[in-house]
């Protein structure tokens, strides 16, 4: 048979691609459950890390997670719990969720109890960095205001620059910051040294050389946490008195907040 005839070449290529495709499809199907479990465990690790908990080993991640996260909640923008089935918050696809208008979003909350009995609420955030998506988990104290811990991850930020949002020193800067200033929701701003947040939010230092990623973190926090305002206010024990004013009213003098702590 002539190896260089067109028929032979086309048949050869077609059969080869068909065979390879079948083999790959089978392998994909066979490994999919295991891979999904890994991805879920990775998410659990990130949530635990926001609570300053390290799982002992990969095998214990799920167990540790279930020990500390006591309830999954979905809340609405008025702060009412609309769903509390198990894993309902964990299963929310943040990527799709943040694209919706604020009013239609699901607002997942993971209620956690630490070893000392204190209650924390973990809120997921999702946004855009320089090269791709960035996301994170913010643990808030039961006063609905103080950040207990934060964990950020990214898909492909620049190593050594934007990728440092996933490192401990940056994440630790969020600890003990307040989401509310004088009773109004302000989020936490990530700004260069010397800049002041226009709305008077508490702020932390941006990463040098990673302006866009830092801004991404800042925007992500504001965008994803703002809908929780009513929920957080309920935690504070103060019902939402007035609708949040959107104008940057009352810029109070922020004290020397851009010193790293």
């Amino acid at each position, binding site marked *: 048979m002539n*190896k*260089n005839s067109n028929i*032979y*070449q086309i048949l*050869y*290529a077609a059969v*080869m*691609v068909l065979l*390879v495709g079948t*083999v*790959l499809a089978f*392998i*994909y199907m066979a*490994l999919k459950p*295991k*891979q999904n479990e*890994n*991805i879920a*465990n*990775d998410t659990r690790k990130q949530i635990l890390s926001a609570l300053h908990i390290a799982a002992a080993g*990969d095998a214990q991640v799920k167990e540790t997670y279930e020990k500390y996260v006591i309830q999954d909640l979905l809340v609405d923008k008025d702060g009412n719990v609309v769903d509390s089935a198990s894993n309902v918050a964990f299963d929310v696809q943040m990527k799709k969720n943040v694209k919706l208008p604020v009013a239609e979003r699901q607002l997942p909350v993971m209620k956690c109890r630490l070893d000392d009995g204190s209650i924390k609420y973990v809120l997921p955030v999702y946004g855009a960095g320089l090269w791709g998506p960035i996301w994170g988990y913010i643990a808030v104290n039961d006063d609905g205001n103080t950040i207990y811990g934060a964990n950020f991850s990214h898909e*492909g930020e620049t190593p*050594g620059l934007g990728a440092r949002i996933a490192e401990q020193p940056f994440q630790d800067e969020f600890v003990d910051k307040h989401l509310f200033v004088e009773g109004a929701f302000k989020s936490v701003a990530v700004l260069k040294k010397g800049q002041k947040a226009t709305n008077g939010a508490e702020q932390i230092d941006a990463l040098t050389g990673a302006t866009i990623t830092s801004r991404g973190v800042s925007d992500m926090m504001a965008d994803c946490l703002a809908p929780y305002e009513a929920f957080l206010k309920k935690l504070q024990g103060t019902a939402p008195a007035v609708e949040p004013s959107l104008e940057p009213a009352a810029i109070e003098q922020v004290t020397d907040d851009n010193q790293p702590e």
Partner: protein
Amino acid sequence: MLSKKNKEALFNPLSKDNPVLVQILGICSSLAVTASLEPAIVMGISVIAVLAFSNVIISFLRKTVPTNIRIIVQLVVVAALVIIVQQILTAYQYDVSKKLSVFIGLIITNCILMGRLEAFAMHNSPWPSFLDGIGNGLGYTIILVIVAFFRELLGSGTLLGFHVIPQWCYDHGYMDNGLMILPPMALITLGCIIWFHRARNKDLQEQ
């Protein structure tokens, strides 16, 4: 089993005909994944596996492959094996697969693979091709491990994640060199290894 020719196929790539040091192939990935030892070792093993099996498969197919589309055939075989490796890593070594991210996928573009398929597997029977794949993969892995050893040791003070530089060094003012973590130092480290290698092997030196 191991005739003289087969031995050459297996052992030459380790030093005298090393794909990285002598042929300067696969540089991109050897700079990218060598910031610490673990990803370097996993990357090395992945390349050995892909290279050995693609060599064998191409060697089996070599008499049937139409000349005009041989590169495409080689690419399909390599791509399929790389995807299999990637899937297996995501399933069983998730953390490492996250660290290696795109670089496993980029094994497809590693010149060592296409080079060996074109130069060796297309003209030799499966067993020597297998040995050639193992040899070249090992040659690549050795260099990766050496570079990663120095970068992790000097850059982070750890080896395979364990702290090996004692605390009293830090107490006396020793500091990890952050520059070692960045790609430029990988290139310089690799350059030093090539320099050393050439100095030891007179027959590699040009007149």
